Structures are given as structure tokens and as C-alpha cells.
């Protein structure tokens, strides 16, 4: 079984090497299919490994294996350790499964791009890094994976590197993630100082011995990493900008896998977080604020991908609420279903953009449901799942989180519950605003010009792009059935062993109640969206003319977070650097010592010109005085 996991991990890196070395020799399509094939095999291995894991008794499902020592110094050493348990298996299946579909989709999406081989290599690199992240059995290797996904994310966001905006977004993403890396690194240092080990087993075993303060600080630092990677408040500003990258990337990295790594991290370190209940509360609050804020901002965005990006942020905030409430299974469950429906929405959006020759502004769309019926149908499934409508997958998972909040029955729980429901309303509105503006209402002039021609030549898109969408639609529609309250509980029982302290499990009654309320709220949201957007683009006028103009403006500017960071960090940093360069380093360290030395020698030179003046008489005088002095000295000394 572990061999299969190793193969899963190794395959993508093999793909990277092969594509890097032979890339130019392979035809572009061949490279794409090769990379996809690797992913398919990796998915197969992961699936078989999961089945084998499931066939074991529950106590033996946690497998740790050490390959080799990676780094050592003194009594410190970390190995290339592999950790395979139920949570890892879920992540593995998502990464390789969704990854495979998106690889296939990319073949079609990138077929006209001369750099598609490089794209495929980067994709494989990303998958490798992500697998490393989830398979690692110690913090150092986790950090390595953590950084490498950040690197591949950087490479892929900035894939079209002659687009300055894309490069800027890529750098922003990388730097924000570097802040997160640093957070995890410091957390790791502290844990090592406290516990003397960085392996998961060591940390989990020693977690109980930590004081609450120690555990809280360590958890806070890990949380910084999680927030950065998962684009949660206050480190979320990179995610909307990351939409400058190719759409498959948005689907794979910025929806399905990488951004959920923060949720994975918290779920993985649940024994540690268990020692820090205050941090858990903080996570819930960050989640609630984040999901509301992202939902609000999503209401006014006009870029189709940015709307979905903010919805991603909002959905991950739900997951944070779930894990923050110690209902780890519901958080991971939402992660699982979210991977389907959000990837579906992104890929669908990609098809729309593809059909409109790269246009991303939803105001330039409209009425596309007749031209792109298949895409419309699939995206509708995704939208319903996202809005949490029963019986689509998102409904089950989101309601599982909210039901957990209900069952906790603490102030925090109630905040989460109310906030979550409010978020569900917003989700319904913004999701269907998108759907109505893109597929209903009257077609915009731009779309009228472009679409007939596009559909005539390409249909709704190449089959390599359509099939992954179909498959994801099935997942988005039915993945929730794994966990029907009171009927099936595959996910819960599968994930239960990962937390030694148990999890919050709502009763079936609470779940059904929440499902009912959630669906009603979601439908309300859809109704509002229908009222505002389904016929004409009336809402903007309504908002712009009303008193809500300022709020609208603020939401459009994403509540000024970017401006805040620009004025508090970016610019002061540049100023400081320029200042140091111009006014400190050059004068003080490069010239001052040299000048000082020059002044010193010049001073001595000038002092000696009184006697060293080139006049021979003067030399003779000094000479004579010297002789006199020497004799005097000898005389006096006797």
C-alpha cells in the first residue's frame, strides 16, 4: 500500500522531469496527454491505496514511513517521512482526481498556446508539491510542500508573463504566501524548542504536555500560514488578483486544492489546536467575518472569475468555521464537495470565456443559455450546489457545518450559525446574479457579435474541455449523498479516527432542520437575484442612485484592503529602501570610510609638507637635528 502512495507522489515529479527535458521534442498535444495520463495513473494508485487503507482495521489506518533523512544537525533531524491516513487519503483523491480532470481540460484550453508544454510541466509540479504537502509526516517537509505549492502557484498565475498584471498578481500571491510560510516556520521552531521534535507523531503525542499559552502561540503561527494559503482575512488580497492566471489554474489551485490547504493544516493538527481553544474560537470568528465580507464583495464584482474567487474565499471561510468548531469532518466534507462544484464553476466560466474570446466581464455577456446549453446546465448544477440547495452536494456539506454550530450551542456557535445563514443568503444572491447576468437577460452587444461565430466554429468547446465539466457536474450533484443525515455517514465515520479527542457531531434532527432553513435561505437569495438581475441589468442603477452608493463603491474597491496594504507596507517599504540606498548606505558606508581614510592621509600629508617640502636644506636640517637628538639621547642615558 505504501508503495502505491510513493508511486503517487513520484509520478508527477517524473512528469515534470520528462516534460522539462523532452518537452520540446513532444508535440504539444502529446505533452498534454502525457501529463494527464500520469495524473490518471496517480489517481488510480491513490484510489487503490485508499481502498487498501479502508480494508484495514481502524486502528492500523495510520501509516508512517521514513524514506531517508533529509536534513540533520546535532540531535535535530528530519526525514522524508510519509504519513498516510484517512484525511490524507481524502486529500490525495481530490488532488489526483480533480487534478486529472483539469489536466485534460487544459489540453483543450491551452491548445493554441505555444507554451502549453511548460504549462503542463508546471501543473505536474504543482500536483507533486501538493501531494508532498499532504503526505508529509513532519513539519519541515510540510513546509517544503507548502512553499512549493506557493512556487507553482506563482509560476502558474504568472504563466502569461508578458502580462504585467499577471506578474504583479503572481508576485503578490507569492509574497503573501511567504508570510504564511514564515508563520509556519516560526511555529515549527517554537514546537521544536518546546517538544524537541518536528514529526507529527511527536507533536501530537507531546501536545498534551504543552501549556495553553505555548500551544496557543504555536497554533496562532500555524494559523498565519493557513490564513495566507487559504486566502482568509487578513491575508486574502492575493486571491482575486490570482485570477489573472489561466482558468484551469484558478479551478485547480485557487479553488479545489491549494487554497484548502489551510483547512487541511488545521484538521491535521487538531490535537494541537485542541490545546488552544481560544485559537479555535478565533478561527471561527475569522471564518464568519470572512464569509460575510467575501459574500458582500462578490455581490458587486463584474469579472466572472473574481466573483467565483470571492465565493471561493467565502466557502473556505465556511470550512474554517467547521474546523474551528472542532467539527473537522464537516470542514473536510465541505472541502471535498467544494472541490467539485467550485472546479465545475471555474471550468464552466472558462468555457464561457473561451466562447467569448477571452472576455471576462459579465456585463458583456448575457443570454448565453441558448447558445451554450450544456455549459449552462452544468454550471446551474454547480451554482445550486454552491448556494446550498438540497439535494445538491454543497447543501449537505454546508449544512453539516451549520448544524455543527447549532449543536455546539455556545455563543460562538450561535454567531457561526447566524453568520453562516446570512452568508448562505449572500451566496444565493451573488451566485445567481452571476448565472442570470451570464445566461439569462438580453444578450449584450459584444456577446451578440462574438457568440454566433464562435459557436459555429467550435461548438460549446472542445470535448477535452467539456467532458471534465460533465464529470465534475456528477460529483457536484451527488457527492453530498455520502453523508445524508441519519442515513449515510461515510465521511464522518471515515474521518472520525483522525481526531483523538473526538469531533462535534450534530444529531440527525439538527441537520435536517438546518438543511431546511439553509435551503429556504438559499432559495430566498436566488429569488432576490432573480428579481434584480434576471431580466435587465437594473440593479446597478438601483444601487448607484440610492444611498448605498458609498457602500457600493467600497465593495467595488474590495473594502480597501489592497489600498491599506499598499499604504502601510508596500510604499513605506519602498520609501525605506530608497532612503537607505540614497541617504544611508552610499554616504555612510561606501563613501564615509573611504573619505575618512583619504582625509586622514591628506592630513598627514599636509602636516609633513612643512618638512617634506622638496627643499634639500630642510632634509639636511632634520637630519642634523636627528643626529643631535640621538647623541643627546645617548649622553643622557649615560
Amino acid at each position: 500500500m505504501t508503495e502505491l502512495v510513493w508511486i503517487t507522489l513520484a509520478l508527477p515529479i517524473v512528469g515534470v522531469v520528462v516534460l522539462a527535458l523532452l518537452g520540446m521534442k513532444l508535440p504539444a498535444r502529446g505533452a498534454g496527454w502525457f501529463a494527464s495520463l500520469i495524473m490518471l495513473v496517480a489517481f488510480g494508485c491513490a484510489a487503490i491505496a485508499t481502498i487498501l487503507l479502508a480494508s484495514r482495521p481502524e486502528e492500523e489506518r495510520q501509516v508512517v514511513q521514513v524514506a531517508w533523512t533529509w536534513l540533520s544537525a546535532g540531535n535535530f533531524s528530519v526525514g522524508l517521512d510519509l504519513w498516510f491516513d484517512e484525511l490524507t487519503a481524502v486529500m490525495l483523491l481530490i488532488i489526483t482526481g480533480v487534478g486529472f480532470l483539469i489536466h485534460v481540460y487544459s489540453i483543450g484550453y491551452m491548445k493554441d498556446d505555444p507554451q502549453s508544454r511548460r504549462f503542463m510541466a508546471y501543473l505536474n509540479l504543482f500536483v507533486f508539491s501538493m501531494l508532498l504537502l499532504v503526505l508529509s509526516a513532519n513539519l519541515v517537509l510540510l513546509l517544503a510542500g507548502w512553499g512549493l505549492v506557493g512556487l507553482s502557484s506563482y509560476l502558474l498565475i504568472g504563466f502569461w508573463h508578458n502580462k504585467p498584471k499577471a506578474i504583479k498578481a503572481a508576485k503578490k500571491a507569492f509574497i503573501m504566501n511567504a508570510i504564511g510560510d514564515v508563520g509556519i516556520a516560526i511555529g515549527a521552531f517554537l514546537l521544536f524548542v518546546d517538544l524537541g521534535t518536528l514529526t507529527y507523531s511527536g507533536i501530537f503525542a507531546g501536545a498534551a504536555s504543552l501549556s495553553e499559552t505555548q500551544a496557543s502561540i504555536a497554533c496562532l503561527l500555524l494559523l498565519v500560514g493557513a490564513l495566507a494559503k487559504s486566502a482568509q482575512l487578513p491575508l486574502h488580497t492575493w486571491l482575486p488578483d490570482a485570477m489573472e492566471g489561466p482558468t484551469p489554474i484558478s479551478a485547480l489551485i485557487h479553488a479545489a486544492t491549494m487554497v484548502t490547504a489551510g483547512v487541511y493544516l488545521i484538521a491535521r493538527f487538531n490535537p494541537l489546536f485542541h490545546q488552544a481553544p481560544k485559537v479555535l474560537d478565533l478561527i471561527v470568528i475569522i471564518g464568519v467575518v470572512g464569509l460575510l465580507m467575501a459574500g458582500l464583495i462578490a455581490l458587486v464584482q463584474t469579472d466572472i472569475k473574481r466573483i467565483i474567487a470571492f465565493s471561493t474565499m467565502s466557502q473556505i471561510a465556511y470550512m474554517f468555521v467547521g474546523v474551528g468548531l472542532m467539527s473537522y469532518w464537516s470542514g473536510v466534507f465541505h472541502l471535498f464537495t467544494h472541490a467539485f462544484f467550485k472546479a465545475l464553476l471555474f471550468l464552466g466560466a472558462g468555457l464561457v470565456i473561451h466562447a467569448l474570446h477571452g472576455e471576462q466581464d459579465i456585463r458583456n455577456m448575457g443570454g448565453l443559455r441558448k447558445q451554450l446549453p450544456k455549459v449552462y446546465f452544468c454550471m446551474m448544477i454547480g451554482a445550486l450546489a454552491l448556494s446550498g440547495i438540497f439535494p445538491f452536494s454543497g447543501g449537505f456539506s454546508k449544512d453539516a457545518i451549520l448544524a455543527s454550530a447549532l449543536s455546539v450551542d455556545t455563543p460562538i456557535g450561535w454567531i457561526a450559525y447566524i453568520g453562516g445563514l446570512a452568508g448562505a443568503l449572500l451566496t444565493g444572491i451573488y451566485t445567481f446574479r452571476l448565472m442570470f447576468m451570464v445566461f439569462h437577460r438580453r444578450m449584450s452587444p459584444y456577446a451578440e457579435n462574438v457568440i454566433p461565430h464562435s459557436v459555429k466554429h467550435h461548438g460549446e468547446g472542445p470535448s477535452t474541455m467539456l467532458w471534465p465539466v460533465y464529470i465534475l457536474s456528477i460529483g457536484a450533484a451527488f457527492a453530498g449523498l455520502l453523508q445524508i443525515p441519519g442515513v449515510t455517514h461515510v465521511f464522518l465515520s471515515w474521518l472520525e479516527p483522525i481526531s483523538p479527542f473526538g469531533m462535534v457531531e450534530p444529531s440527525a434532527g439538527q441537520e435536517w432542520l438546518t438543511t431546511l432553513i439553509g435551503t429556504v435561505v438559499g432559495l430566498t437569495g436566488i429569488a432576490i437575484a432573480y428579481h434584480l438581475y434576471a431580466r435587465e441589468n437594473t440593479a446597478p442603477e438601483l444601487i448607484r442612485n440610492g444611498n448605498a452608493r458609498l457602500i457600493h463603491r467600497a465593495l467595488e474597491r474590495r473594502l480597501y484592503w489592497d489600498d491599506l496594504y499598499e499604504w502601510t507596507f508596500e510604499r513605506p517599504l519602498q520609501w525605506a529602501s530608497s532612503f537607505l540606498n540614497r541617504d544611508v548606505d552610499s554616504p555612510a558606508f561606501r563613501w564615509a570610510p573611504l573619505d575618512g581614510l583619504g582625509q586622514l592621509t591628506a592630513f598627514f600629508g599636509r602636516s609633513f609638507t612643512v618638512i617634506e617640502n622638496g627643499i634639500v636644506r630642510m632634509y639636511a636640517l632634520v637630519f642634523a637635528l636627528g643626529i643631535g637628538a640621538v647623541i643627546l639621547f645617548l649622553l643622557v642615558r649615560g
Partner: protein
Amino acid sequence: MGIVVFFLAAAAAIATAVAVVAQRNPFVSALALLGNLVSLAVLMLLLEAQFVAIAQIIVYAGAVMVMFLFVIAYVGPRGEVGPGERKPWQVWLAILAGTLIAIEVIVVTYGATFEDWAEIDGNYGSPAAIGQELVTNYLLAFEVVSVILFMGAVAGVIFGTGGRPRRLSNDEVLAKETESAELRRREASRAVLDATRESMGEGS
């Protein structure tokens, strides 16, 4: 008798030496040096060093000083250099150095007790005795001196004849002319200055 001769000769030597140093006209200086050499020769005779005394007069007074006088005559009035821009502390330091060394040597020698003059025979200081030494014990030094003299002669010839004024370019001639004009102007003004100073000195 010896004491009288010594003091007379010593007084003459010191007086002529001071004259050499103090005289502005090099011609007078050279003549004073001649006197100095003669008085030293007298002192050497007092020390029974007949050959050295004679050599002193013949070689120095006869040959070297003649050469000096020739050169002084060749150079003419240019050989005369006024006090120039001399700073007083230079003068004082020079005198200090001179007196310091003199006093120190005197102190040293005064404190030392020497044995009496050695007993000597009539052969002492004779050309034969000196010649004997020169061609036996000091043959190498003797030969080295001759080589050095030869080299000095060659150097003198080269310096004296090789440095013929090179042909100057027009610019340089011009520069030189302005320079010498400047020099003349400076000398003239200095002369005026000296004259005024003198007349004022007389006047006061």
C-alpha cells in the same frame, strides 16, 4: 709656543670658517676657505703630520680651490643668492642643530680623559711612512679612491658639457622670456627694496 700657535691658528680657522658661511659673495667665501685650509694645515703641522699638511695645501688650496674659483668666475654674479624667503624658525633650528652637535661633542670629549700624546720617531708623518701605508695596508682603499676620482672626473665632464641647452620651441622660448622677465622684475624690485631698506636704516 705650541699653545700660542694652536690658538692663533684655531682663531684663524674659526674666523675664516664663519666668513665662508656668512659671506654673500662666493668669491670671498672661496678665499676665506683658502685661509681656513691654510690654518688647518698649520694645525696639522703642529700635530707632526707634515705630509697631510702639505697635501692639504697643494691638493686643496692648489687644485680644488682653483677649480672653485674658475666655476665661480664662470657662473658670475648668478652665484650670489640673497636670503630669500627664509623663515626665522629655520634659522634658529639650524643654529640650534649646529650648536647642539658642537656642544655635545665638546661635552663628550671634555669629559673623556685621553692618554698623553704618543712617543713618535722622526719618521712619523713623513711621506715615506704614509706612502708605505697606502700601498700596503690601504691599497684597496687607495685604488677605490682613484676609481672614484676617475668616475667623478667623468661625471664632471658629462655634467659640464653634456647638458647643452636644447633647442626650444617657440612656446617655450616665449615662456622662458616671460619667466626671465619676471625674474628680472623681481630682482629689480628686490634691489629697490634693499636700497630703500638701506636708506631707511641710514636714515634712522
